[in-house]
Structures are given as C-alpha cells and as structure tokens.
C-alpha cells in the first residue's frame, strides 16, 4: 500500500475518533518498513491537512479534534525515538497563552500539531507575560510567536506584545500568530490585537506558521 492510501486510512480513523485503529495503522506502516520521518510527512501530515478542511467546514467538534491530536501525538511517539525531538526541520517557534489566560487545551493541541509538522516548539505555558514571549523568541531564534487567548478580555493583553515587538523594530521580522476561541467568533479581533494572522484550529496552525515564517524571511 502506498503512503497516500495509508494516509486515507489514518484520516478515516481520526474522523471516526478511533485511536486504537489509528495506532494499528501506524504499526502496520512501520512494519512494512516505511521510514518514520516519511510516515510523519506523507501519512500523518496529509491526514491532518484533510482534517483542517473538515474543521473549516465546521464539521468537526473539539472532541474529534482532541482525538485527532492524540492520534498525532501517538504517531509522533512511535516515529520519533524516545528522548529526541521531532525533526524540527522547519525551525523554532514560541507558543503560550497570554498573560491572565489559563485555557491551555487549544494551545497544547497546537503544540502537538506544530511538533508533528516539524517545528521545534517552545511552549511557555499559561499566563505568559509579553516580555517573556519576546525574550524567548529572540533567544531561540524564532520567526513566529503563537499566542493563544480564549476570551476577549485576555485577547486584548496581546496588544502589549505587539507593541513590544514594534518598539524593538522587529515588526515584519518576528511574526505574531494569534488564536483561540474568541478569534473564531470575532475574526476582526486579529487585527485589533495586532496579530499578523490566525488559524481557526490546531490542525491549520502549521499552514499559518509556514506562511508567517516565509514572510518573515522575505523581510529579513
């Protein structure tokens, strides 16, 4: 069976929230001798992209998304040797929930999917001050900071990070991705808090970060 067929089977397992079935599929793929990194890029990643399309059509719930993220995590653990990071070929990124925000589920899932897609993820956790986001991004050489907020009130705290980035003359070079439930309800809030872009869900975070990284390189 080729990688496209395996990916379709994995996608079906994800949509059906069949975690055990997905594990079996990955075991079979690896037993057939497919390189683990190829499993990630050609089996897991296309399935995730398809899930993103479903989510865009509002045909997936958080429950299904949660199961999908666990399947992605299971796949990563099987394909990446214990103790090592993912390939990290796409570069470092920094993520976290903005100051006063404690809703970690979405951010955690974003971290899993970004990791699966090949980013080296520096997850700063909940209630992160803007200064720490910037300091970490500069330290690790990230081109994108991903900030999560669930509520409108906490989303406005992101503005301070926007100002910090701009004050350092890093606008355009260091991109600001924003996300969380409130941005899905009010897309105009992305611009209001100074975001360079947003993804509706964890599954499409890779596409957003890839675009922002490319734009950052073009400026640099």
């Amino acid at each position, binding site marked *: 069976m080729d990688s496209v067929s395996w990916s379709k089977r994995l996608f079906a397992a994800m949509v059906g*929230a069949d*975690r055990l079935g997905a594990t079996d599929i990955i075991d079979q793929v690896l037993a057939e001798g497919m390189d683990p990194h190829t499993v990630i890029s050609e089996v897991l990643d296309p399935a995730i992209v398809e899930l993103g399309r479903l989510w865009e059509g*509002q045909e997936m*719930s*958080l*429950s*299904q998304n*949660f*199961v999908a993220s*666990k399947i992605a995590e299971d796949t990563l653990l099987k394909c990446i040797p214990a103790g090592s990071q993912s390939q990290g070929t796409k570069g470092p990124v920094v993520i976290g929930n903005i100051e*006063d925000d*404690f*809703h*970690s*589920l979405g951010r*955690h899932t974003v971290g899993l999917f970004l990791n699966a897609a090949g980013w080296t993820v520096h997850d700063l956790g*909940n*209630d992160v001050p803007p200064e720490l986001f910037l300091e970490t991004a500069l330290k690790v050489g990230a081109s994108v900071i991903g900030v999560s907020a669930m*509520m*409108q*009130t*906490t989303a406005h705290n992101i503005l301070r990070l926007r100002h910090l980035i701009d004050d350092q003359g890093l606008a355009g070079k260091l991109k600001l991705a924003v996300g969380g439930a*409130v941005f899905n*309800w*009010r897309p*105009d809030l992305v611009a209001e808090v100074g975001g360079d872009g947003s993804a509706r869900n964890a599954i499409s975070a890779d596409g957003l970060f890839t675009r922002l990284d490319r734009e950052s390189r073009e400026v640099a």
Partner: protein
Amino acid sequence: MNSYQRVMGTLTGQPVDRVPVFAVLGAYGAKLSGASLNRIFTDPASYAESQTAVQTTFGLDLVMTPFIYTFISESFGGETAWSEHQVPNMKRPGIGSPAKLLSTPMPAPEDVPRLSFILEATRQLAKSYREKVPVIGVLPGPCIMPSLMMGIGPWMETVLFEETLARKVLDHTNPFFVSLANALLAQGADCLVITEAMATVEIAPRALFEERFLPVVAQTFSQIRGPKVFHHTGGRINHVIDLLPGLDGLAGVAIGSRDDLGEARRLVGGETNLIGNLDNLGFASSSATEIYEMSRRCLLEGAPHGHYILSNSGADIPLSASPDTVHAMKRAAEDHAGARREPHE
C-alpha cells in the same frame, strides 16, 4: 405586571405585557455599584448590592446569583486568577487525575466557604426580590462539572478514551452537582440555569451527547427540585435541541447566538421556552442602535410564538460594553410590545 409575573407568565404560556428581557450582568454589577470584582465575589452583601445596582439601572427581568465557576474549582483545591477586567477564572484545577478525583469526597456546598458565599448571596437576593424579580441561579452542568475539578484536558481525555472511568467519575460527581443545585433552590433561587458545554456542537457531536451525556443530564435533572433552563455555554446547541424537551423540570432552553432561532423553535415545538440569542461579544463593539436592531430581529423571530425571552447569549456581557446597549435591549422589547398593541387600540 412585575418582572416575576412577566417571566412566570411567559414560561407558562400566559399573556404578558411584553417579552421579558434577560442579560448576564454579574461582573457588570461591580462596575455599576463601584465595588471591586474581588469584593462583590467575596462579600454576599456587596454582591447583592451590585445586583440591585443592575436592577435599578436597567430594570431587566432577572437578578442573578454569583456566576463564578472558579469557586467550584477552589472548593476542590484549585486556584483562581483574579483580575479587575474580567470575571475571575480558574487558574489551575486542584485535582490532577480521575483517580484522585474518585478518592476525593464530595463536600456539602454549605460546608465550603466559597460555595457558602454563593448560597448566602442567593439568600439575600431572594429576600429582596421574592416574587418581584426572578432570582436565577447559575451552575455548570453535570457533564462539564468534572472539568472544574480536574481540568478540561484530563476530563476530555477521560471522556474520550476511558468510557468506564468517565462513567465512574460522573457517578462520583453527580451528587455534588445535584446538591449544589438543590442548595441554590433552597436559598431562594426561583429557577436554575444549567450551562452544559458538552451539549454544544463545538465540543461534542450529537451522537456523543446523546449516548453518553444526555442520560446523565436526565438522571440528575430528575433529582433537582425546581425548574431548570438548559444553557448552551456560548456554543451552538441546535444539533441536540430536539432531545431536550421532556427533561424533568425543564423550564426552557437558552440557545447560542449562532443558532437559528426559527430553526430552534421548529425543533423543540411550540411549548418549550426559548431564551436568546443576541451575540454576547457584540456588546463590546456594537452601538446601542445596532443592539436595538439585533434585539428587534430576535423579537420578530421569537416573540410571535410566545414562550420566548430576549437575552444575550453567552456568559457575562463584557465590562467594556456601554450601558446604552443594555438599555437598547429593553427598549426594543418595550417598542415591540407597543407595536403589537397599537392595532387593537
């Protein structure tokens, strides 16, 4: 006709002078009364005063018991993040795993300081407003309740991957949910609004709700000795709304702002009360004129069938919302009633 009569008349299908108007103005009361959020959510008298300020300012058709779910988390060892800009939030849960939750005894609400604050504030509101303005108690639904004790991530993982364990957890926590609901009623709440996030399409597909959560809702509702409104928690609920009529003591269903009100009516039939469905977040960025127009559209859709209450859909109206937007809701309901009467005058 006072607010109590208006709301009770609407719920029971009797003629009323106008459509009742609800708005979630818990934290907003602090803005009106001049007290800090910390004060109104720790001092029952201050909370009651803040609701009186809401009532005096807007004259809406409810007063609300404290809407502060993080106090449930605190009752199980969790921590609260306080802010002067928003309703206090759960910072971290107190229990790390389903196993620990199963070994944690469920307290009587009256014995827990944070919950006894809520109960005392309810008692004071009931003393002031009994049979004048409905006292509406607010609490999280039985199926989302464990997330306040152990965190949403671990709870979702348990629900989705360990069905038997999830069932045990719910069997363990359901008595606490029921006792909190009955305690609110005992202190004078006229009706309970039960926010069940597991019923929203954003959280769980219909099959998951119907198979795993609806039986829990049905079982616990039958043990609560008072009327209950089933609330959407900010998401959409129309995908399961047809399953709700017939629940024991169901007084109504609050639908989300992105639910279609007409579709909701078709799905529940003519006798079920519907509450909603103004966009909650819109209050911060919309003018009073816009809110008036939005309210008018809701009234045109919902009011002709009766059994309808105009309300914002979601949690607290943002503190940054202008008072004029809330006034606009009520004015829309008054104007709608006036227009309805004119042909007969």
